[in-house]
């Protein structure tokens, strides 16, 4: 039987693509979550606006 190396290469190449693709997906997800967490942390640390003073009492007529 011929060796059919092209089929062997196709099988191993495809497996490498699928596993590499899944790994990259996990890495991308990890990066996105870290960025989102950082954004959340940044908004939490921002100084909150102080309540404005009510101003002088309005004279009653």
């Amino acid at each position: 039987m011929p060796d059919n190396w092209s089929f062997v290469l196709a099988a191993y190449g495809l497996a490498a693509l699928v596993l590499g693709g899944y790994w990259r997906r996990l890495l991308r997800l990890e990066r996105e979550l870290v960025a989102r967490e950082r954004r959340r942390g940044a908004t939490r640390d921002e100084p909150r606006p102080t309540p404005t003073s009510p101003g002088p009492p309005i004279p009653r007529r």
Partner: protein
Amino acid sequence: MTSRERALGWLAGLGLTAGLVMAFGVAPREATQGNVQRIMYLHVPAILVAYLAFGVVLVASVIYLWGRAAGADRLAHASAEVGVVFTGINIATGAIWGKPTWGTWWTWDARLTSVSIMFVIYLGYLLLRAMIEDRERAARFAAVLGIVAALDIPLVHFSVYWWRTLHQPPTLLRPGSPPMDPTFVLALMVNLVAFVLLYGYFTAKRVRLLRQEEEVFA
């Protein structure tokens, strides 16, 4: 990334390198099929790891339904996802191996059909999880499906005994010693260990990301 995860990743990388060396450098050329038989070192470990992954889904689903442990639900989710990846590799490499040896990419043989059904069931499992917004409800429904879906695993494995099939009987998971030269068995075992390590790495990483997702979107 935790140190355990990093160690698993490195071990998996080393294992895969060793597996490639065994498959292409140590294992001899098979007498009947020629070098195309080397696809076996990829095809067989992929399905065995898929069995392992779906077995973990079954156990984690039972634990979740028993005590509503969120960790068990995350493990089931991650393991199902990784199991689907390995099942996909098994089906694709099987088709590539089938063309030169059987003369066809695909046939509705009992083994091929039952594996495809298993693939679709677990894809459905992931879809179900994604479709339900309420996390607790999604986990509960998925756990029930994770238990029912596991019924297909023995069907896949024993299909070659129960029906007349073009696919050969199991090579490793069978009573008695494997009907192969020890060098072939060793190459297969090294690749199996590498795939199990890779499964462990992917699953550990996915479980951690699922936990992080829950915290971020809480």
